[in-house]
């Protein structure tokens, strides 16, 4: 079977989609509750950290560019170590599913279909994800390109819609809560980047141009960060940090109050239609990575048989999280942060160190594969 490859552009698009939906919606509320008007500074810090995390991951994968982080850990310390890493990664993506589903469901349900049962939203996400997964990573990559396009449109619409009510005074003064709290608050957004870097750790070997991995990874983060950071800036300027902190999904409040001129308003549905394409890509990619982790865990040849069980587990967990608003927010702001950050930084670092120690093994495998 021919090995599936995606282009670097698609890789970048996947990174952007992977981070965007949650970062503008739920994350900003969490940050605003901690550092108020400094939320955009926190987001900015987080983008830098995300960039570093991405570069670390790419560096790790480049140690043995033919295999992803799962394969590499198997190469380093044997089959069982590989399986443990796969299990941890699978748990990571199960956790991610909770956050991702929360984003998707709360945007659509709370504001558009408050009377519809939650399960419908979960099933909808499930169906689309499974349908896309059976078509393979390339189709998902292409969908991510469309996702980026819709993100662009969404940002343009929101900028036009809110620039009139933008009050720069709300952004001042800088660092009103101090640099350290800002940095600390950036952990909320770091979890979003963690999803992107972990995804990169899984799919990087499928990306075509090895030499430009670093550039595309970093560029993806920079673009994603640029798309995201518009939101905290506008949210503070238009809504004020206090109001943004009030809501679970603060970006929707801003979208709802956007108006172009006096007569063109109430167009958040167009925006949310664009948004849902991106959010769906995020769900799909989370499922994909979980399926790949299961594949490595059990040792299957292809990830296709793993799609259905992985999707079921992830959807089930997502449903459980989403069902209770308090549980969802509590989960995202505390447990998920711990889980995500420790895995997303810990595992690449561990593999990096192991790679230094067992450099020979990696070299052997490289020469063997040639």
């Amino acid at each position, binding site marked *: 079977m021919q090995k599936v490859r995606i282009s670097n552009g698609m890789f970048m698009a996947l990174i952007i989609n992977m981070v965007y939906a949650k970062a503008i919606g739920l994350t900003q509320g969490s940050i605003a509750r901690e550092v108020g008007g400094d939320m955009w500074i926190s987001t900015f810090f987080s983008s830098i950290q995300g960039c570093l995390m991405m570069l670390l991951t790419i560096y790790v994968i480049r140690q043995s560019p033919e295999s992803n982080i799962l394969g590499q850990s198997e190469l380093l310390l044997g089959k069982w170590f590989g399986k443990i890493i796969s299990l941890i990664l699978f748990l990571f993506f199960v956790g991610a599913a909770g956050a991702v589903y929360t984003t998707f469901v709360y945007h659509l349900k709370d504001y*558009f279909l408050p009377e519809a049962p939650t399960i419908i939203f979960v099933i*909808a996400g499930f*169906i*689309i994800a499974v349908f896309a997964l059976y078509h393979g990573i390339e189709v998902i990559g292409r969908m991510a390109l469309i996702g980026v396009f819709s993100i662009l449109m969404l940002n343009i619409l929101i900028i036009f819609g809110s620039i009139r009510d933008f009050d720069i005074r709300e952004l001042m003064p800088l660092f009103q809560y101090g640099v350290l709290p800002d940095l600390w608050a950036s952990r909320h957004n770091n979890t979003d980047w963690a999803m992107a870097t972990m995804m990169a750790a899984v799919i990087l070997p499928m990306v075509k141009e090895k030499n430009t991995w670093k550039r595309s990874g970093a560029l993806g983060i920079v673009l994603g960060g640029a798309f995201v950071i518009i939101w905290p800036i506008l949210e503070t300027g238009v809504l004020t940090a206090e109001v943004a902190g009030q809501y679970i999904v603060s970006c929707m409040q801003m979208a709802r109050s956007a108006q172009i001129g006096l007569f063109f308003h109430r167009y958040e*549905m167009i925006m*949310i239609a664009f948004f849902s394409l991106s959010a769906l890509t995020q769900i799909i990619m989370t499922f994909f990575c979980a399926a790949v982790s299961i594949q490595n865990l059990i040792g299957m040849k292809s990830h296709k048989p793993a799609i259905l069980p992985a999707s079921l587990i992830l959807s089930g967990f997502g449903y459980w999280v989403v069902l209770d608003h308090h549980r969802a927010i509590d989960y995202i702001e505390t447990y998920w942060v711990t889980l995500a950050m420790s895995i997303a930084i810990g595992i690449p670092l561990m593999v990096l160190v192991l790679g230094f120690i067992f450099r020979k093994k990696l070299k052997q495998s490289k020469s063997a594969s040639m």
Partner: protein
Amino acid sequence: MERNVEELLKQNLTSSYENNKVMVQSILPDHADLVTREFFFHEEKNIAIVCFYFDGLVKSDLISSVIDSFIYQAPRLLKDIDLTTLYKKLPEKINKHILHAHNVKQVTKIQDIIDGILSGDTVFIIDKCDQAILVSTRGWNERSVSEPQAEQVVIGPRDGFTENLRTNTALVRRRIRDPLFSIKSTTVGKRTKTTINIAFLEGTVKEGLVEEVMNRINKIEIDGVIDSGYITELIEDSPFSPFTTVQSTERPDKVAASILEGRVAIFVDNSPFVLIVPAYFWQFLQASDDYYSKYLTGSFFRIIRYFAFIISLVLTSVYVMLISFHQEMIPTALALTIASGRDVTPFPVLLEALIMETSFELMREAGLRMPKPVGQAVSIVGSLVIGQAAVQAGLISPFMVIIVAITGIASFVIPNYAASYSIRLIRFPLLIASGMLGLLGFSVVFALIAIHALSLRSFGESYLSPASPFQPSDQKDSFFRMPWWKMERLPSLAAGKGRSANIQKPKANENED
């Protein structure tokens, strides 16, 4: 009694004249339009000749002139020839020295003879010869080259393909006078034996594409091919998809332009529609006019068409979704207006939309099938009934009429008929989903359609290219049409490089004083 035609067809001619004659006649017995003409062309030696042809498939004056040649020229040829050696060389001699018809073949297989007769050639079976002479006398009444009905342009050539394969290939060859422009032939259909020609530009076409097309066509096993639509369905990449992955056109200029860009054209005999592969989705939204008018106008109308595509796809669904789920999205003044129109309507909006969409399709179909004068009457009556009476009776809200009408007009804007059909089809699931689940249903079905479209391929090329996967080099001719002096390269599909020299931008002579 069953005739063993298959068995007979496999045989060769023998030197027995009677036998040969009977063989042909028994394969084609009692055919009312089969003409059998027997004559002798040498009064001394009385060499008999019989010719068979189908009346109506041939140009009879051509046959007369062939017979003429036989009777008046052949005796001279035979003057000093020994009769024993004569019969072996006779067909060749006649072929080379006497006949001045433009296409003459010597054949021995019964199969070839019958095929020839069936396609309008005339076969001459000569006494005691085991070779027959097949003279191409094809000629029948056909529609002349006229303006294409389905794809009209304002600016640009007005000729369209006809039902005659040769005329069609000639129309294209007249546009591409290049030795590298080649046409390959094959036959499909056990009974119809339809000739299919595959045209491409050697060196520009991507490697392996022609072979792939040939393979797919040669794999076809079917009794008959009546129109190129048959071929489309038999060589498509994804047969279940509502999207068409093969472009069909009536316009020779379109075919020529596609061939220049490295695509392959499939000509099917008896069909004025020529297939072009691989096809991209966006092509269906591009009209020939775009290329013939100035690039600014071309780009503008192209954008209008993209806009029309979006409208025809989503407008009804969005309206239904807004009315039944997301009333807060409608501007207040508009919401009041719509509500006042809907106050007396008895149906839920989804049903209303379905009724209107269906009746619109009804009217369109009725107008299409009726003879032209009646068709106009149908549309007048239909629009009166639906536009006026239904609203006045309080059955349908006036806004729904507007929505359906705009959707209908927008779908007529799409230049390719097949594509406009497929958009009409995918509109319905979208409509039902948004009527049942609002924004969620809309985005789910839309995402499903999008994923499906993204996974489609047409002869190895991504269907949605160059939008996704994004190809920066092909953007010059996708959303906008860049001026010709900007398009220095062929699209990435083509194997060749250049289209024009580097800088073609016209410039007034600056040195002139």
